[in-house]
């Protein structure tokens, strides 16, 4: 089984570069168990056709994921999710996460979601995520 195409959705109105949307969604799928270590990702061509995005955009997303250590390319076989022990140091991981949190903080500011509501939402999403991971592992 490979990661389902249905997990991936492009939103041109998000203002985020298309390849980064793919990077984020595949990283999320990897972190939440939507795709597991050693499982293949869709090949570039069918994924590009399915999403109707430029082949180079998918290739760029996969190259980015490879440089982040999320996936590895085995020549002639395709791209696979790597062991989840992240090659990044703790501080590097926190730096990546800080950037993402900053984006959410700015969005919350614009939407006038105050500190308490924001923190409550973060907690709720964390709970939700952990519940999903648990369900996944229970199903194995």
């Amino acid at each position: 089984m490979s990661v389902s195409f249905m997990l991936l959705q492009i939103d041109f109105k998000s203002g985020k570069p298309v390849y980064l949307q793919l990077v984020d969604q595949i990283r999320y799928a990897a972190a939440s168990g939507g795709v597991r270590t050693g499982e293949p990702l869709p090949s570039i061509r069918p994924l590009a056709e399915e999403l109707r995005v430029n082949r180079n955009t998918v290739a760029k997303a996969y190259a980015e994921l490879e440089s982040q250590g999320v996936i590895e390319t085995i020549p002639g076989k395709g791209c696979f999710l790597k062991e989840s022990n992240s090659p990044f140091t703790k501080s590097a991981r926190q730096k990546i996460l800080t950037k993402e949190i900053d984006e959410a903080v700015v969005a919350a500011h614009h939407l006038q979601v105050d500190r308490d509501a924001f923190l409550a939402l973060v907690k709720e999403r964390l709970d939700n995520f952990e519940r999903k991971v648990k369900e996944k592992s229970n199903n194995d």
Partner: protein
Amino acid sequence: MNTDTPIIEIQNLSRRYGNLDAVNGLSLTVRVGKCYGFFGRNGAGKTTTIKCLLNLLRPDSGTARVFGLDPQKDEVAVKSRLAYVPDMVAFYPWMTVRDTLEYLASFRKHWNSDIENDLISRFHLDPKQKSSHLSKGQRTQLALIGAICPEPELLVLDEPTSGLDPIVRREFIETVIGAYQSGDPGRRTVFVSTHLISEFEGLIDEFTIIEQGRNLLTMEADAARDRFRKIRARFSQPPAQLDLPGALNVKQSGREVEILADGNSEQLLEKLKARSPEELRCESLSLEEIFITSSLLKQSA
């Protein structure tokens, strides 16, 4: 060829028909491996530009270079490396689908028969069918097969999907992505003029909007979607005297306001927030919306 040589380079191109300036000082550059969108209203000069690239028309002034070559002087060298699908395709009516493809292949040094057979079956074309009996969609599919099988470095598409049904349009675009772009990855260049911008949205790396023969806007697609944003705000009372400098357009209807931001969405959002809106949303414009909005750029310029 030097890898930095642009695939298409147009500088200050002009072409008149009598008193009409169809193309009037147009410049643009298409780099290798990109999918370049060429957007414009009817009569903006898109087809005239494309015909200058293919030496079907001669420019009055300025230059058009393809693969770094002059299409007038090196017509065969240029044409042997590209393929062209116009909006109206015509074939010899007495030839069958197979005859037509064999005829097209006879002009080419290279022809990928595997792709030919794949696409014929994908499009459910009957090789024995006479081309005069094909529907408009089938004729376009046949033209696309003829354009892709030589595996050219450059694919020039002029309104390729206009007048086709949605399923044929979708297949057309998937074929360009799959069968064309996947060979020789990163080296296949597409230059597409189209009105159906939303369908090509995911394919476009960079685009030019042409108006009255001039370049109105050239941008990378991701950068353009970052720059042009639509802000919607709802207030508890109809807001009076909203001061929104630098907004491309402001529409107000009662308590709701819609604002088009041109690279200044952050400042505009701050301004609006100071008025304590009940709701505030911000989203990027699609390329099609940017195309429609681009006429406002001209007015404000």
